[in-house]
């Protein structure tokens, strides 16, 4: 029972080590996929069991929210890693190169870190795990070894670590607050329970800093700057993982902190911070997508947009809004992972990430264009995809919470974003195939392959499509998870 908690990190460890030291292509290819599968299974199992197992005095603990996040990590991970697999014959049949092995191992570590982050009760451990994701992904971002990827990695590590360091400061101060309240603890349950009489002044500072820190990792403006670079330079599956879940995991941390702060201070502080960050993120995303010239960056900015939307939803608070936010996390994760995988294949065929270099995909490569269109439709909130419901839900909840002005602003920005994304996508997908179908740019190494399995993409999109209509079991799960946050 409680052992379930150990399975994801252990699996990550085992497969990671295997990928690192077993000189076998199969292992290098499948380690990430298997890890994700295990994480997904564990998450679903925990949800099904419906109890709250605990291990090592809360070092590992999974309530409904954790279990849900675990499942999301697994699902998105599966989509990205499985979809990222090139055809078998592609990679040399001989033993994998050091680079390939390191890549595979780091992916496992990355997944493991994320699953620890969502399945711990100890804020300290949570912080360590989040920082660990930075460390793991640093080399993944820099994987290409090109000047651009190095630049992205540097910016990512510096900005990311600094931000997360600020979060550590917040956590430390929370610890101090608990200590001065009599019982020194980092246990979220204890802190959020409200039994400790945390000092409001100190908690205010602590929560503010912690949220600011984790917001950096969640890609909320104005700390978002690292995100477009990192996401555009990382290999497609990694981009999918980072954009799909890493941001969400960081956001999960924010939700936890918010619960504590609201318990001690009432909702005003967090609402203010999150609303500001959310609207700012939406604005930045809108401004930079409108004339975007690089489709991977476009997808990255769209992640900023959706994180902003989540922040707005969290700012609204209440079970309805939080349920919508969690549903949005799931939908966005799957859709975005799909899109990044497709983007990787497009890059592999066209040899360029410039939008103007990609033309007439629908006519030339329907197997890329169709999933791209479907994913983009999901991202733009067309029914039946679940993002439609979550966006509508957030807006409705916002107006009910008396945040009409913010919702109006949000909708206006969403319209601009729609225009930008639609324009760019139309430019890439539509049109007549030009005479020279050959890529205008020489293929870079390590771009992955234009071919790849369709199944994961179809599955991900199908789940996104039906996720809006599952009052049971998904609906109840969401409500349970929202209840965990005391809202």
């Amino acid at each position: 029972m409680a052992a379930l908690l150990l399975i994801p990190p252990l699996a990550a460890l085992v497969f990671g080590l295997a990928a690192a030291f077993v000189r076998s292509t199969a292992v290098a290819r499948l380690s990430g996929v298997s890890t994700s599968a295990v994480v997904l299974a564990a998450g679903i199992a925990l949800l099904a069991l419906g109890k709250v197992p605990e291990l090592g005095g809360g070092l590992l603990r999974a309530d409904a929210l954790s279990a849900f996040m675990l499942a999301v990590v697994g699902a998105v991970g599966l989509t990205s890693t499985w979809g990222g697999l090139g055809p078998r014959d592609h990679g040399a049949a001989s033993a994998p190169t050091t680079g390939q092995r390191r890549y595979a191992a780091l992916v496992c570590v990355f997944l493991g870190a994320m699953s620890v982050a969502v399945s711990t009760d100890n804020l300290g451990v949570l912080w360590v795990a989040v920082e660990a994701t930075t460390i793991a992904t640093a080399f993944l971002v820099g994987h290409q070894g090109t000047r651009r990827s190095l630049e992205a990695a540097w910016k990512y590590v510096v900005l990311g670590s600094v931000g997360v360091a600020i979060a550590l400061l917040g956590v430390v101060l929370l610890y101090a607050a608990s200590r001065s309240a009599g019982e020194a603890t980092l246990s979220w349950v204890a802190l959020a329970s409200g039994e400790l009489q945390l000092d409001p002044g100190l908690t205010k500072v602590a929560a503010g800093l912690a949220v600011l820190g984790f917001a950096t990792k969640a890609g909320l403006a104005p700390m978002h700057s690292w995100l477009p670079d990192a996401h555009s330079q990382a290999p497609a599956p990694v981009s999918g993982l980072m954009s799909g879940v890493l941001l969400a995991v960081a956001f999960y941390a924010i939700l936890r902190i918010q619960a504590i702060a609201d318990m001690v201070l009432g909702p005003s502080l967090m609402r203010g911070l999150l609303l500001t960050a959310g609207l700012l993120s939406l604005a930045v995303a809108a401004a930079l997508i409108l004339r975007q010239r690089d489709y991977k960056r476009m997808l990255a900015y769209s992640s900023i947009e959706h994180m902003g939307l989540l922040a707005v939803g969290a700012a609204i608070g209440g079970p309805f809004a939080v349920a919508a936010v969690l549903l949005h996390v799931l939908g966005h994760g799957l859709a975005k992972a799909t899109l990044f995988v497709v983007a990787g294949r497009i890059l592999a065929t066209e040899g360029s990430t410039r939008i103007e270099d990609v033309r007439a995909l629908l006519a030339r490569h329907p197997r890329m264009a169709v999933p791209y269109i479907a994913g983009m439709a999901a991202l733009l909130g067309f029914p039946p995809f679940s993002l439609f419901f979550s966006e509508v839900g957030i807006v409705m909840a916002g107006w009910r919470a008396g945040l009409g002005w913010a919702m109006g602003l949000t909708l206006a920005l969403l319209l601009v974003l729609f225009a930008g994304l639609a324009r760019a996508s139309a430019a890439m997908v539509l049109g007549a195939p030009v005479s020279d179908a050959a890529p205008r740019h020489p293929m870079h190494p390590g771009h992955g392959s234009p071919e790849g399995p369709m199944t994961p993409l179809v599955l991900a999109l199908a789940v996104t499509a039906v996720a809006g209509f599952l009052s049971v079991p998904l609906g109840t799960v969401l409500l349970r998870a929202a209840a965990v946050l005391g809202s």
Partner: protein
Amino acid sequence: MTTAILATQLLALTTGVLLVTSVLLVWQRSLASAVRVLAVQGGALALLVVAIGLTEGDAELFVVAVVVLALKAIAIPLVLARAIRSSGVEREDKPLLNPTAGLVIVALLTTLAYLVSTPIVAATGGTGAGEAGPAAFSAPVGLTMVLVGFLLLTTRRRALSQVVGFLVLDNGIATVGFLTAAGVPLVVELGVSLDVLLVALILAVLSGRMGALIGQDPVSMMTELRD
């Protein structure tokens, strides 16, 4: 009794050193000496832990002190020194902020730190060292270090001096931790230290690669990724 006095003395001394070293780093230009200063700061931090250990009478903290010493006063400075030697850049010439302005800003940041610390001190003052001890009262020092570290990061052109800035920031956080809460639980402390070490390593490695790939002054050359 004597230990208590010793502890308070030690506290005063170490916090003073921490503050001074941070200011020095802003004023400092030579990377090599910056790293030396950083090592000193690490040592001071270790001493601080010892001091708090004395006041708290908590054996665990001495272990932590050793860890801190090993990590912040020895390991990381060594890594940095090696990186500097290999990169062949030894001066932070033309930083984005001339030292005078930098120092003025430091002054401002310090006041901000003291401003911010009031609730912290108010809340934790009782628990620093038995009575409303000096520990919590010197919490602002930690915050100042955090802000100064951030300032260094923002205004330094050299990759490695940015690393230095990051480490100062991290020291600052640790300081705050120790002063206000006698440090976080050991497990977490170890995890944090490990992370910091790794980050420092990664940054060192990356800066090395960049130096090889881009050449002198890579950080401000890195504007290829833009909209």
